[in-house]
Each structure stands twice: as structure tokens, then as C-alpha cells.
């Protein structure tokens, strides 16, 4: 027997993916060229403007930098703000997705 909702008023708990897999929203995917990314080139924490400006907070500011493509909405801010132009927004028809 399926348990019933025991809430008498609407109270929510936090969880990832409230809107589903928001990675499906994007029509272009950010691809990092680690030969240009300052943190990778210097092999230590550096720059991280992509992490700073990501509205979703889904950039991992490590060495190397990683973007969570499950939830990246493809806004392109990281690509726009990267000082070494290390990130390219690759349109999906180009990659055949």
C-alpha cells in the first residue's frame, strides 16, 4: 500500500533536481580547453572566474576545473567571462547530440 502524504500543509525538503535534469535544457555545451585554462596551465588553484560567475554553482573549482553537465543549463557565462578564452560553447548540432 502506497504511503500517503502525512503533511497537512505544504512543507518541502531540499533535494537536487527539483526541476529534473536541467542539463537537458541547453542547446550548447561548455567544453574546457585545459591547455588554456589558467588553473590547469599553472597546475594549482587560480582564476576560477567560471566558478565565481556560474549562476548554478555547478563548476568544481579544482585542478582541473570540472562542469557538472547533468545540471549545466548552458547559459555560457563561463565561456563569456573566462579571461583566457578556455571555454567554448559547442552547439549541439555540431556535436551530433
Amino acid at each position: 500500500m502506497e504511503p500517503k502524504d502525512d503533511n497537512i500543509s505544504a512543507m518541502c525538503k531540499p533535494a537536487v533536481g527539483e526541476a529534473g535534469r536541467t542539463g537537458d535544457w541547453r542547446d550548447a555545451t561548455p567544453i574546457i580547453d585545459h591547455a588554456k585554462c589558467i588553473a590547469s596551465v599553472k597546475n594549482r588553484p587560480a582564476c576560477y572566474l567560471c566558478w565565481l560567475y556560474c549562476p548554478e554553482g555547478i563548476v568544481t573549482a579544482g585542478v582541473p576545473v570540472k562542469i557538472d553537465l547533468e545540471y549545466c543549463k548552458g547559459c555560457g557565462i563561463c565561456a563569456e567571462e573566462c579571461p583566457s578564452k578556455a571555454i567554448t560553447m559547442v552547439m549541439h548540432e555540431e556535436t551530433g547530440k
Partner: protein
Amino acid sequence: MSNVQIMTGNSAAAYGARLSKVQVVSAYPITPSTSVTETIANWVERGELKAEYVRVESEHSVMTVCISASTVGARVFTSTSSHGLLYMHEQLHWAAGSRLPIVMCCINRGVGAPWSIFNDQQDSIAQRDTGWIQIYCRDNQEILDSVIQAYRIAEEIYCPVMVCYDGFVLSHTMMPVELPDVDQVCQFLPPYKPHTILSPEDPRNINPVIFPWQRRDAEGVLRDGYMDMRWKLQRALEGSRDVIVRASRDYAERFGRDHGGMLWGYRTEDAEVLIAGMGSIATEATAAADLLREQGIRAGVIGIRVYRPFPRTEVREAFRKAEAIVVFEKNISYGYEGALSADLKAALYGTGTDAPVHNFIAGLGGRDVKTGELVEAVRSSLAAITAGDREKQTWLNCVTE
């Protein structure tokens, strides 16, 4: 040792809140409710009542403060009338949907346009669909007792309660009121245990948008859609009848005063005509019933104390043997009839009780309702019924030509 004081209805309401040890009071002035919260302001500033007193800038904010303070876990109180109640209308819906045990006094006053500061019940009756429990008081003692009972009821079923009483007629009239012992009230009223969780220890998002359909949460549990959640409110209100009756009975046992639970009757056993009303007009009708009996008409009165949830069961029983029903009320649902008359007829539908129901709209905007007028109204109804009028709406003592 009884503690009887002569006080106005507004003082009685304030004492009800004080004895219930309310923790947050929000206040905005409107005639004729203002002195309720003025009295409380005096107590708070003198240190006689330990409560947060928020002097908000509108009645919409009055109810908002009640909602959020109650959500945090505080026992809250406020009072208003007429346009103040109307101004907070959306928040009344919000409070009920939030399932918060807010207790508010509505000091009944007519609504504009044009302006009326005087008594009728249009203000609270117009809120009957919001999901609040509504209690209509007959006298100042009942006001104090009902405010205390209201917290018991509200906090058991998590629904807000409106304690209504007639503006000026009760709010500003002095009557003897017995103040119950504060420790006894503490025993009658256990501390408020909120069902809402608004706390950094367990972060929740309360009252977001909800879909029409059910939806699974992150743990896979199928949670309610809007309609399911709202059905729970309806279920709570329907179920509140038992809680109201029990609270009334327990109060009577502890404090010796019984105001009747859902409704009360006066000289109804052998009545050939039953008069129905809410609040002070029902009390006045008891005087009319006495006069009618002297004139040979066996009249009785059913006073509807709790209007929402509508006391279907009690009404069916009380009016089962009625041969004629006369409803006096201080409200009108424009384009149709008085709310009590309509609800009464709906409750009796299909039960076999087929008495004619005559609806008298009385006292709007504070027009005085005299006992003699009620007597004449009943007599004229009975004559009209004999002549074949099964349904009739009359505006009492009003220019209608």
C-alpha cells in the same frame, strides 16, 4: 472565590487572550474593535502580559504577522472588524491553507459602500468560505469563554478560529463577566505544539507552489497535489465538530459555564414555530419567543453558535419537527438570500423536514432591531404561511417600496 467584573465585550475578548497567555499580538485600529488591542497594549507595556506587540501598518499585515509568528511556534491573537477583515481576506485563505491555529475576534460591523460603523454580520459571513471556524457569541461572558476554547480547538485540529460578536451591541456594552482562574485555564489549554517546521535545524520550504497533480518527493513518497491538500482542510473542518463539542463540554465541567457547543435551544420542546439566528439577534429572539408565547404562539429559538463548520447534524435534529421556521439574520448574499437561511434549507434538504422557511434580513448597518419587531415579524410569517407562502424574504423595518 469568584472573580466577577463588569466589563465590555471588547474587554472580555482581551481577557480571553490574556488568560490564554498569547505570545504575539498584532494590532491595527478599526471601530468598534480597537479597544481590544488597546487594552492589551496597556497590559504589555505595564509588564502584566508578556507578549510581542506588533503595531502594524494595515490589517493585511495584521494577519500576515499572525501567520508567520504562528508558523514559528508562537500563540497569536488579534481582532478586527468590517473593512479590516475584508482587507485581510486573502490572508484568511492563506492562514487556513497553512493550517495555523490563529484565533481572531471579529467585532461584527457593516461594510461599505457607503460607510457604516454600526453592527451587522456581513463582514464575517462574507468570509465563510475561507476555511476558518466561526463562533458567534451571545454575551460578553461567552466572548471570554469562547476565546479560550478557541485556542483549544484551533491547536488540536490546526485550523484558525474566528470568534465573532456584534459591534457596539456587545463590544461596547458592559455586562458581568466572571474571570476564570489563570492556572485553571493553563490546565485547560496545553501549550501550542506547531506542526509547521520553520527552523534552521530542519530547513524546509513552507507553502510553495503546488501542482494540480500528485508528485513524488526525493525519497519516492507520492505527495499531495493542491486538491488533496485542500481536502485535508475540509476533512479537518468537518471533523472539528467533535473537537468543538468536547472543548465546550470540558470547559463547562471545569468552569461551570456551557454555551451550547454547536447550537443552543430555547423553549423548543413544543414549539410550533422555530426562530433561528446568530449572535445577539438570537438572544433578542428569546425575548420575542417569551412575548409570542404570552400571545398564544408556541415559539422557540435555535441559536446557531458555530456557523462554520455548519452544524448539519445538530440542525437536522433541532429542526426535525419544525412546522414553520423563521430566520432572522444580519447579512445578505446579494442576488440570493441570507446565508443562514440558505445553509439551513440546504441542511434540511432530503431529510423529510419540509417546513416553510421565511428569511428576515434585519439590522443591516446597525439599524435597531426591537423585540416587538421580531414578534410582529413572526406573526406576519405565520399568517403568510397559512396563506400559502412557503418561502419569503423580507427586509425588516426597511424602505422597500
